[in-house]
């Protein structure tokens, strides 16, 4: 009986202890599954008006003074398979040499998982000191919630190296909250070997010629377009290009930024044009079940003639010695010359580093993030996985020919349009993506697309 009582007390005690077992846990080890590069929307227009900027959130306690050892934490998406990985590694190595008193603990996460992780961390106030983010509305939500440290002071010393236009997507109510690490646009990549098979030595410059080329490719048993339908952002690379080259950059920008309604007949007609490409069989029917990595691999293996995607892919294409000589890049041709023109590009600076307002070393982290962002941009440009958001320096002759071609396209550009899914806030962006999905599946037509979005976007 006595024994029974002792055992009962022990069991009850164990249960009580279990109630206090839930303490805060350290950040788990990173998941380094292959990253799908995200679409980087950018534009030189101000981000969405409703992103209310936070006042400068003073860090809880800026514990570091000059020269004192400081440990900073950073989260990013530069996993082992990410094309920016090398740029991050080189930049961090150089920072470690330049600032031996600062130790950086950094972790990389897969792209899609990161979106979930960073939002959970923001909500729980468990953010790292420095974190990767996409600009515009994605960062804007955090800024509006006063979770991001203002970088005005830290960026002031870099004004000659970082053009103000590159900060447009991370400026909210006149204050800067992000450091751009690269700049990218949507490019029309082409496998010239396949185009030569149907008599084309260059990427067609007009839309009519482009369609004729697609018909010729189809006739020769070559799939014109590779598109990962499983990742809707890949579909937007095509759709947004078609819309922009039909209605013009300004009109599309106004819609993305909420200044104009989606219920625009020209946009509806452009969506029907895109669906015409789908119905004509220009897209790989298996693409609906493939990831972007698989589609990119198929493109490099010669399965598709065209691959419309971000110019961060230049590094991977350049790294493949067998494929690199075959690939060229161009701007998507104009569809409606009355409203659109060449030199209006989808893209801009989107990949950004930001500093948590709750960081105990926010000022140190801010300075560190600015210098690190500059170095990532530099090494990323040398690797060819992005265009320089910062003014290039040093010997850049080693930059691959494909990235240089993209630079030439950008040099002739006069306006940029943000990627829709980053220009808009999270809810609107995902509503938009769900309709893009339905357009690709031919489940809604152009009119239903514009009416649905006009109705559902809050």
């Amino acid at each position, binding site marked *: 009986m006595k024994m029974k009582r002792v055992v*009962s007390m022990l069991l*009850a005690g164990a*249960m*009580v202890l*279990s*109630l206090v077992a839930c303490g805060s846990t350290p950040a788990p080890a990173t998941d380094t599954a292959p990253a799908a590069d995200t679409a980087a929307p950018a534009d030189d227009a101000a981000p969405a008006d409703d992103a209310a900027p936070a006042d400068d959130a003073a860090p809880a306690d800026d514990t570091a003074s000059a020269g004192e050892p400081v440990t900073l934490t950073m989260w990013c998406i530069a996993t082992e398979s990410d094309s920016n990985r090398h740029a991050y590694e080189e930049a961090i190595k150089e920072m470690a040499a330049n600032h031996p008193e600062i130790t950086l603990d950094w972790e990389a996460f897969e792209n899609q998982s990161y*979106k*979930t992780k960073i*939002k*959970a961390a*923001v*909500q729980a106030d468990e953010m790292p000191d420095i974190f990767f983010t996409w600009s515009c509305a994605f960062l804007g*939500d*955090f800024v*509006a*919630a006063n*979770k991001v440290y203002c970088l005005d002071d830290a960026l002031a010393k870099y004004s000659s190296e970082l053009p103000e236009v590159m900060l447009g997507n991370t400026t909210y109510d006149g204050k800067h909250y992000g450091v751009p690490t690269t700049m990218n646009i949507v490019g029309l990549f082409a496998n010239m070997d396949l185009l030569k098979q149907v008599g084309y030595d260059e990427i067609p410059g007009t839309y009519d010629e482009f369609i004729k080329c697609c018909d010729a490719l189809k006739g020769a048993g070559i799939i014109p377009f590779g598109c990962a*339908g*499983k990742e809707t952002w890949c579909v937007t690379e095509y759709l947004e290009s078609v819309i922009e080259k039909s209605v013009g950059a300004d009109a599309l920008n106004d819609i993305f930024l909420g200044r104009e309604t989606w219920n625009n007949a020209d946009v509806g007609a452009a969506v029907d044009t895109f669906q015409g490409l789908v119905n004509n069989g220009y897209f790989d*029917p*298996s*693409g*609906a*079940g*493939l990831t972007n990595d698989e589609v990119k691999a*198929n493109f490099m293996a010669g399965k598709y003639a065209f691959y419309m995607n971000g110019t961060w892919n230049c590094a991977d294409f350049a790294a493949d010695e067998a494929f690199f000589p075959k690939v060229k890049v161009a701007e998507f041709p104009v569809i409606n010359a009355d409203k659109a023109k060449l030199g209006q590009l989808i893209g801009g600076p989107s990949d950004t580093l930001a500093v948590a307002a709750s960081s105990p070393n926010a000022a140190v982290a801010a300075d560190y993030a600015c210098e690190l962002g500059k170095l990532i941009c530099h090494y990323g440009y040398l690797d060819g996985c992005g265009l320089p958001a910062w003014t290039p320096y040093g010997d850049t002759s080693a930059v691959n020919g494909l990235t240089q071609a993209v630079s030439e396209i950008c040099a002739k550009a006069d306006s940029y349009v943000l990627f829709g899914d980053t220009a808009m*806030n*999270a*809810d609107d*962006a*995902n*509503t938009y993506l*769900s*309709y893009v*999905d*339905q357009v*690709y*599946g031919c*489940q809604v037509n152009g009119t239903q697309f514009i009416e*649905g979005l006009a*109705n*559902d976007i809050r």
Partner: protein
Amino acid sequence: MKKLEKGFTIFLFLLPALLLFIGILIAPIAVSVYRSLYDWDGFSKATFIGLENYKELFTSGSIKFTVSLKNALILAFFSVFVQLPFALFLALLLGRKVKAERSFLSIFFMPVLISTVVIGQLWLKIYNPDYGLLNRFLDLVHLGNLKHVWVGEVETALGSIIVPTIWQYVGYHMLLMYAGVKGVSLDLREAAMLDGATKWQVDRYVVIPIIKPIIRVSVIFAVTGSLKAYDLVRILTEGGPFKTTEVPSTLLEEMLFLRNRYGMGSTISVMLIILCFAFALAITAAFKDREA
């Protein structure tokens, strides 16, 4: 006084379990119900909107909750009417003391032990339209006309999820039923066989009625598990193509972490709780009627 003391002691011993029960089960449900009445992005101040989230759940053109519910119910249908009968068949077969009974048990149970992520990736490779095992096999047997983009076509995507789901959990239900089958007294079996019943008649008229409570539990698990299905859907199709394989859990994830709509996410979780509870009650009532 002694009675009060006894009551207090009982309460004291029950208190830790009660606190755990409230903390892990009741409190989160209450918070979800509370949050479902608000429009909240997870970072800023929440705005009270009453039942607007519930209204929008069933009327919005982009949320498609009814599609996700339909998919979950289809999954439940196949779980109950394909997976469970097959699990029962295996349990009855293995319950007859066959050779290598334990080995077969382990083999059938192994998929339950494997991580769902691994299973999802395995089946993705099987379903790959270019080099996948399934399409390659169809080519081999001269049935190339039956090839599909299994996870990419609207007609085949949901089926592509149902097959590995059934495959993964048939062993789990088989084991539950096997435990019940093994508990049936040998005397009853022998008595039935002495009366001239065949082995399958013994199973049908003696064993199955005895293990009905276990079958009821399996049905509840199968239905509620289907309503809460997430991992295989996430890995195989991510709710696509074109949101046609969305299930409530993937929708919930999208609302919370992609669309920053914590209020709507809480609404979906409340709906899931209500549906699981309703189905559990309905199944229990249905089995009770049969037993009566």
